[in-house]
């Protein structure tokens, strides 16, 4: 189903890793802001941004927590840039079973960057405000996107199965399964 065009604000944090001095102030302020009540504690292990650091190899990449994923990828990726080999999955934002970042240290619950959503809105996410070296730059732009009716997760899955096996076969299978139960 195709809908009308609508305007959407795209929030971006531009990461200039060359400018990172490795101080981790972003982790400090992120974890402080997200504590309850606000700023009542801080703990970089709870931060939704992490600086992947390996000082002797000159590796400094700030990475933001993205979506939670229940399963690991089938394979792992490893980047080599300018002769520097980065850790497996270094640039990935997912909170995933393969590694311990972006999880609450005590509960293990996943963490996700929310761009410091608050009421009233902040001018910029706090990690950006606290990065005086401009390694983190906040940008907003407006994009016109086609309005789409959101599909339910199950519907997306079924559609994919129907594409592969045909709708009839799916319906037969569903009927058979319900009898068995």
């Amino acid at each position, binding site marked *: 189903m195709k809908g009308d065009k609508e305007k959407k604000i795209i929030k971006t944090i531009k990461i200039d890793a060359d400018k990172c*001095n490795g*101080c981790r102030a972003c982790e400090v302020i992120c974890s402080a802001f997200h504590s309850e009540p606000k700023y009542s504690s*801080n703990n970089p*292990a709870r931060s939704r941004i992490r600086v992947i650091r390996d000082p002797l190899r*000159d590796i400094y990449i700030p990475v933001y927590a993205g979506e939670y994923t229940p399963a690991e990828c089938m394979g792992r990726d490893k980047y080599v840039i300018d002769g520097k080999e980065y850790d497996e999955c270094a640039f990935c934002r997912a909170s995933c079973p393969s590694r311990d970042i972006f999880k609450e*240290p005590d509960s293990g619950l996943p963490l996700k960057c929310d761009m410091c959503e608050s009421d009233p809105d902040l001018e910029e996410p706090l990690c950006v405000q606290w*990065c005086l070296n401009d390694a983190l730059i906040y940008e907003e732009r407006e994009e016109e996107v086609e309005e789409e009716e959101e599909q339910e997760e199950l519907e997306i899955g079924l559609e994919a199965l129907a594409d592969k096996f045909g709708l009839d076969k799916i319906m037969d299978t569903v009927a058979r399964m319900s009898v068995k139960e």
Partner: protein
Amino acid sequence: MRYAETGFNLEIDLSRGNIERVETDPRDTELYLGGLGTNAKILWDRVPPEVDPFSPDNLLIFATGLLCGTPATGCNRTIVSTISPQTLLMAFSMMGGFWAPELKYAGYDKVIIRGKSPDLVYLWINNDKVEIRDASHLQGKGAIKTAELIQEELKEPKAQVASIGLAGENRVYMASIEQGRSSASRLGIGAVMGDKGLKAIAVRGTKDINIARPAEFIGLCNEVLQYIKVREEKPIPGVMPILAGLGSPQEMKVHDEAWHTQNFMWGNARTRRKDFWNKEVEEKWTETLENSRTRLISCYNCPMKCGATLSVPGLPTYMMKCFSKLTYTMAAYSDLDFGFRIAQRATEYGVDGFSTPQVMAFAIELYENGILTDDDMPGMPSDNEGRFYWLLDRIVRREGIGDVLANGTYWAAKEIGRGAEAYAHNNIKKHEQLPLKLSMLNPVYFLMYATGEKINITQIEGQFPQAPFATMEEREDFVKDWIQIPDEKFKQYLLDWEFRGEHSNPYYPTVQMSCEIVDWQETMHYIDDALGMCAGLSSFPLKPPYHIHNYPKFISSGAGIDMDEAKLWKAAKRYRTLVRANNIRRGMRRKDEKPPENHWKKRFPDLEKELLDTYYKFKGWNTQGIPTKESLNELGLDYVFEDFEKRGVYSDNGDTPSKETSEENEKKQSGGSEP
């Protein structure tokens, strides 16, 4: 609940392999804050003067500052305190980096080490799990390499590691404790760590640090950040570039080294080379720095970039900061490329970048003057640079003459004899100083050099300009937004200060003014050292973001301790006095409080006496520099007075010589063996 601090110390007994987590008394935090303050109290309570630096009863304390681990920008210092083998007094070296906040997040304010391990071990602190682990495979490994190997074997790249190199293992008096880009270098604390058989402490923490009044505290943090931003855009005009901005001197950033190379002394603090800096040198040194430096880096939670990663072609990568950039270069009359190359080796060995080059230059001078001969230096290369490498290798291994030199110039000169003592000319309280030799006595600096118990000028100076401004216009411009002063009168002192005439050094600032300036400068450093704040954002630069007016608010809202300016000033005075009390009990007296004889060409004995007399009185000390009964009582330190009385401290004017042999030497004389 405890705020800003965790309220727990780790007590490690290496002799018995015992580990305890001990709750601390919150009243001590109110009285002594934390970091250096509470360290001084612990050393007073538990390390009496009979305990030698290399006794198992000596403590080695790794402390965080009270505000380390909070969002307060730049608050990341580890304060390491023990009894120094070099000065035989209380040592409190510090390092920035990432170690102290990590310890806080693991749930501890201090790690207190006592005893000695029979075998080389390291400590692994992972939140509540603390282990003493075998380090025999790390024996002889470089300090940086050790950290890397430990992170690998623990599979914990986020662990922060403080470690010693070969120098510490061999109890070299100038051995440092290294931690990535930072090091606690002065006063031989690495030697004490080595003596205890402790190669490293690795720490990882994932717990919260709590804040008493969050909204107020974060507001203060934001003000400081804003101030840093504005202050960095507006360097102070009319002062030398390294004093214009914030941070420790931006040595890793700048190419122009005219000031250091032409004003500081080369060799064994001997030669001033007024015409050294020229276009050719500048081009060559610029190329060296550009080809080695991969990135400017900071410590934990700080926007400054005082350090750098250096990858000198053909050598392993290491990190450097501040004036170590030039110490080896200038001691060896060499160039920056040599300085960077030998500093790489020295960092892995784990030695102090101030004392070590001076000790080597001292040895070369003794050799050139026939006091040390070819018999003492078998196989020493003939070229200057080769000699420095040769000496460094021998010092850290305590081989041959290296065994003597490893005790620093003061003790080495005594052992060598034959007039060598005249060459150990740049010490205060037995410790090597920056290679500076100047013309006219500066009364403020005289007092700082004489009475500073950090025994390092950079750890007491700051805040008040080092020299007057030339014009009244510049002075008025400087004082108009000088909010950091504790009292308006300091503005007038600066406005009236001239280069020449009645209002110039050495008689202006007047004796009284000098006392007040020094007291202010020192107090700010002591506050930093208890809170864990980097001096580079506070006590060292001109017009810093942290000062006596906002610190009480940080402490009140952060730690939940009711604090105002008067109370904070008094607390700093209390533990500053306690540092002195530790040293007085160890025999320090007026006779020890003097700058090197040749620090200034123009000296004024009567004025110097008056300065010291007045300052002692100002601080509440008697003519020997011993805190009086009244001043101790006022600070609530009656227990110090009682101990002084019992030991007869007040009747000891320092004529009975304090211990005058080094510990290493004593062992040799008594035929003692390695522990």
